[in-house]
């Protein structure tokens, strides 16, 4: 496997810069004293990125829509809580154990649904939900685990290097998010990912061309479970008081689905975008005292995304990255300079970016690659491979063929730089 093809140097460089900047942030915070709250906020963003990405590499990539995220998340949460509070483990060693527990739950669930009964579609979704609720009920009623009273998790030991609790959560949360994103990225660009996408589109045909579908489904389910559980284990520290409502409630499952659908399930960074956006909106709404209205806003975002952005934000962003990114930067800088806090400024930036994202192409300056494929037989395809087939697209394609094509000398040359 060609490493340069999987990791193009320029892409790696950009993400390394972002990663290093995020690593330095707590130190910068210590020096400049910008609000500590920002670190807590960013930890939550990392947490949701990890959870949503964990969900997406299973459900987005392979098409097996899971409602059972809580089974892994809660399993990891209780693993760390029990090991830490009853057996006085340090925090760090509980995380791999939590990952193992999550992997184990996923593996056993996978054996049941993929081997014993070949479940798919809505039955698969229901079964995963039942597993999560079932494990929750077991934990709630079995005294060895919880027994229904909940568990208070005291301070756990961890290496001093990681700073105070907020910084420690920040660093570990960032690490887990990076691991999850790296996994999602590598899978998407590998043979494994190609096989999963084939399973998503037509499992029988995938099997017929040689994809070992059972093995692949088991593997991605297990990895997904391990990531979710490790992240859940760390989150136990942030939550502090662990109950089955927190661990096995529906909230996590609903949010990871929401984030992935809004962000886009076809790209490794779709859940990242969704997590950043939705956590920011949720945080600002709560901060402004409109926590109740938050759900209305989230519902509106979801409706807009499903109606107008079938591939999620990421699909549209890949096609046309510059205008929305510029919109975000302008919105952010503008509000930040005007004296608003960083997170509020980011929320405004996202709002502007989103509006630009939804603007139909015909209102924006034209560019060659938007009309790509116009000269090919069959006419109008836009071969982004992103799975976008939304109404906006169709509208602009027609316009594109009529208006832009003649005036654009470069359009007959096919672009293949994918």
């Amino acid at each position: 496997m060609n490493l340069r093809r999987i990791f193009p140097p320029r892409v790696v460089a950009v993400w390394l810069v972002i990663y290093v900047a995020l690593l330095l942030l707590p130190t910068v915070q210590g020096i400049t004293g910008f609000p500590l709250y920002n670190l807590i906020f960013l930890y939550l963003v990392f947490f949701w990125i990890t959870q949503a990405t964990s969900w997406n590499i299973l459900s987005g990539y392979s098409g097996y829509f899971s409602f059972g995220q809580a089974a892994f998340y809660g399993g990891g949460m209780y693993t760390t809580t029990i090991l830490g509070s009853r057996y006085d483990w340090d925090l760090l060693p509980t995380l791999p154990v939590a990952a193992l527990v999550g992997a184990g739950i996923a593996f056993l669930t996978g054996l049941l649904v993929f081997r014993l009964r070949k479940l798919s579609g809505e039955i698969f979704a229901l079964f995963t939900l039942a597993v999560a609720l079932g494990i929750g009920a077991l934990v709630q009623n079995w005294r060895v685990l919880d027994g229904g009273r909940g568990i208070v998790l005291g301070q756990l030991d961890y290496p001093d290097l990681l700073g105070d609790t907020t910084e420690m959560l920040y660093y570990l949360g960032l690490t887990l998010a990076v691991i999850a994103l790296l996994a999602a990225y590598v899978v998407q660009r590998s043979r494994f990912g190609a096989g999963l996408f084939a399973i998503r589109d037509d499992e029988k045909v995938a099997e017929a061309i040689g994809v070992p579908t059972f093995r692949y489904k088991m593997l991605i389910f297990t990895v997904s479970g391990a990531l979710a559980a490790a992240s859940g284990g760390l989150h136990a520290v942030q939550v502090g008081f662990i109950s089955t409502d927190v661990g096995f409630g529906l909230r996590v499952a609903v949010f990871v689905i929401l984030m992935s659908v809004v962000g886009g399930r076809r790209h490794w960074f779709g859940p990242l975008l969704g997590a950043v956006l939705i956590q920011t909106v949720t945080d600002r709404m709560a901060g402004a005292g409109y926590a109740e209205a938050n759900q209305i806003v989230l519902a509106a975002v979801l409706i807009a995304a499903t109606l107008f952005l079938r591939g999620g934000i990421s699909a549209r962003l890949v096609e046309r990255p510059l205008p929305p990114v510029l919109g975000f930067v302008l919105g952010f800088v503008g509000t930040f300079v005007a004296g608003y806090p960083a997170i509020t400024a980011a929320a405004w930036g996202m709002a502007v970016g989103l509006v630009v994202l939804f603007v139909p192409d015909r209102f924006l300056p034209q560019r060659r690659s938007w009309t790509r494929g116009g000269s090919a037989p069959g006419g109008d395809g836009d071969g982004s491979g992103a799975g976008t087939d939304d109404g906006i697209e169709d509208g602009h394609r027609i316009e594109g063929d009529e208006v832009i094509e003649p005036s654009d000398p470069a359009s007959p040359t096919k672009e293949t730089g994918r």
Partner: protein
Amino acid sequence: MSTTQTSTALLSCHGLVKTFGGLHAVDGVDFDLYEGEIRGLVGPNGSGKSTMINVLSGHLTLDDGQIRLDGVATERLQPHRIAELGMARTYQIPRPFGTLTVRENVEVAAHFGASEPQPDDVHDEAQRWLEFVGLAGVADELPDTITLHQRKLLELGRALATRPRVLFLDEVLAGLNPRELAHGIDLVRRIGSLGVSIVVVEHLMRVILDLCEHLTVLNFGKVIAQGEPEACLREDAVVKAYLGDAHA
């Protein structure tokens, strides 16, 4: 009912039985396919042709009988293991991976397919087959934006990218206009000249007579004739099966 070849068959089937409830869809079929051969598999609707393909590719499990692909027993293997051994198929109604581009459809097949030979570079391998079937010009389109003819070619390209030794074509040429048909027949011939052994399931007799050196005729799950195409089609049992008793 005998073939002239004496070498051992690449694909050898003996006593294949597949029943659905009380219906014997495939009922004791013996079938041999030789290296480099293009074999026609014909018969009226419901004679068991598609069931044969589904059984041989592992989609359906066999009730009885043996299948040997180059000496390896495949009747209990999962479909992806059979694909690894070098068996590929197309679907009567094209089944492209809908969210992948034409190129990605072929690439994923190149990623998997036969365990050997492994392609040096999946991208190049896919490009090669896209050009071979004539889809390089629409490689970056999504399957639902190309024509039916192109989707059928995509079925071929994807199957070829799995580097098969045995290829089953399930009515890949049905529903095409005369020009497309001529192109398709030429394409199948070129695939044959690559050394791939091909089983052509087809209703169009013109295609069968053009392409195949040998025919196997099925009716009600049984082989009723086997051999030279012209001779086969003259046999009483075949005429009866197609046209009814009055014409025999």
